[in-house]
């Protein structure tokens, strides 16, 4: 009996050794499923993201997929940094798949964020979006746009008010010295944990 079990285990070991690309996890969705989901462009404009920032919308989490140095230099208030190369690590799964929370990826342009969105979708996460145009579009539209007409409509007024408020929040957050930024991030993290854990 012992000999049979030994032979079985050795045989299984040999088979495992020949499985190509066995190490590491792969997408949960099948290719056809992922293509079907990814064919739809799920994105928010920078104006919509600015509104989420201003209202501190708790049903939205912003994820910056740039590297840590770029994130520390400047980022959209309330965003969390998950560098692109770390996105597939197991520790982030719970952060990406929060119930009733829309996850919005952004990078400097569209490409990395769109890749991150596809990875998150492939890993089985729902409600994943990108901020179209990335931080470059954010700067162009939210940070530097000015109203140039003579009369302003109510709609335009609301639009520019939204941008100015988001601009102020961006300037305020990113003008903090690094030590205060760290405290801000720690406080934010702690608040999240408390909220998640309940009391």
């Amino acid at each position, binding site marked *: 009996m012992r000999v*049979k079990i030994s*032979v*079985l285990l050795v*045989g*299984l070991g040999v*088979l495992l050794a*020949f*499985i*190509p*690309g066995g*190490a*590491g*996890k*792969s*997408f949960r969705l*099948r*290719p*056809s499923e*992922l*293509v*079907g989901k*990814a*064919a739809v*462009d799920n*994105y928010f404009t920078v104006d919509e993201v600015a509104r989420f920032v201003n209202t501190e919308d708790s049903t939205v989490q912003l994820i910056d997929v740039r590297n840590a140095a*770029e994130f520390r*230099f*400047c980022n959209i208030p309330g965003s969390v940094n998950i560098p*692109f*190369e770390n*996105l*597939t690590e197991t520790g982030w799964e719970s952060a990406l798949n929060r119930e009733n929370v829309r996850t919005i990826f952004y*990078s*400097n*342009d*569209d*490409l*990395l964020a*769109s*890749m991150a*969105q*596809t*990875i998150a979708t*492939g*890993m089985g996460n729902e409600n994943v979006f*990108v901020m*179209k145009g990335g*931080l*470059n579009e954010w*700067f*162009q539209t939210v*940070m*530097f746009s000015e109203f140039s007409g003579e009369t302003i409509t109510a709609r335009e007024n609301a639009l520019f008010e939204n941008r100015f408020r988001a601009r102020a929040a961006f*300037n*305020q957050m*990113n*003008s*903090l*010295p690094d030590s*205060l930024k760290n405290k801000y991030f720690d406080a934010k993290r702690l608040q999240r944990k408390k909220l998640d854990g309940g009391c």
Partner: protein
Amino acid sequence: MKNLKEFALVIGILLVVAVLVFARTFNKNRFSESTQHIAETLKNEPVFVEADNLQINDYLVVELGENSNKEMFPSAVKVSFEALTDKNFRKQLEISEKKILLTGDELQTAKAWVILNQLGVGNLFILTEKEKTEKLRYNFNPDTTKAVVYVE
């Protein structure tokens, strides 16, 4: 012969496992690469090709979606996003000896790149219209005076 009979059960189990392993490994309707391969590929080589630096003869151009640029890419392979997993299309990519260049809407080409990368297609590149794509083209100047006011 006697030994074979004794080990029939073990051999049977091993054969079943072997069949399952081969079926899973060579199943074209599954992703074959690990997700870590995406980050590794991006780290090892630049995959974004700027239109200004394009050596067109080095690439098999794949146009995604409706928009067509016949003047620039007369011999491009046109494919819809939904047909990315189509057997004939993948065969075409496999037998091509050239590098593969994806063009079209940036959001869509980035998604297509990830999907094809995970399907095991190598030598994949994305054409970008922008110069220095994924670089921040604006400089943020911290307003420390305002920050002091806000902190107070």
